[in-house]
């Protein structure tokens, strides 16, 4: 059985590493934050699987703490960019294929 748990944990670790592409590529900061949040959920699952595979029941507590505090970074993220916008500010949404100068700089 623990072989199966370990394989599942390895698979989930692989999905985290794949999902890193989204953090690296963005393009918006919302995308990056979303990906980090997703890693939290996957990390909780990996910890639960490892707790059975390695027979270490304390890992359930670690998973509990991760689940409990997963939301903190997201709340901090929302508190960014709160300078009061002038009332006539247009919501500066632009189509993703416009190569505007404020496109996030990608240095790869």
């Amino acid at each position: 059985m623990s072989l199966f748990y370990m394989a599942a944990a390895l698979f989930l670790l692989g999905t985290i590493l794949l999902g890193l592409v989204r953090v690296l590529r963005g393009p918006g900061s919302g995308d990056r934050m979303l990906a980090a949040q997703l890693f939290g959920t996957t990390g909780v699952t990996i910890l639960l699987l490892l707790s059975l595979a390695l027979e270490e029941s304390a890992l359930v507590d670690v998973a509990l703490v991760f689940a409990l505090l997963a939301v903190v970074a997201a709340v901090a993220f929302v508190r960014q960019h709160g300078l009061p916008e002038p009332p006539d500010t247009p919501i500066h949404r632009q189509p993703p294929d416009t190569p505007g100068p404020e496109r996030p700089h990608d240095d790869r």
Partner: protein
Amino acid sequence: MIANALTVILIFAGLVFFAAGTAGLLRFPDVYSRLHALTKADNVGLGLVILGLMFQAGGPADILKLLLIWVLVLAAGTTAAHMVAQRTWTHGEFESDR
């Protein structure tokens, strides 16, 4: 024996959902559709894995702890998705200072 088989099946189903969530995160075109990966796919995947692990739990306390973890992750995922979506909606997908 049956418990083991159920665990394997449920965890396997959960992994499929995780894979779907990652695919969604990578392939969907914009933030709003990528939110599905967070709020739906991964939370269902975690739910299935936890359901599978419950068959291996030692006692009612362990089962309750696993359930609590799922509830907390659900709450965190919902809140985070809501806040990321709202912020993207009010500030635009690309900020001007990066």
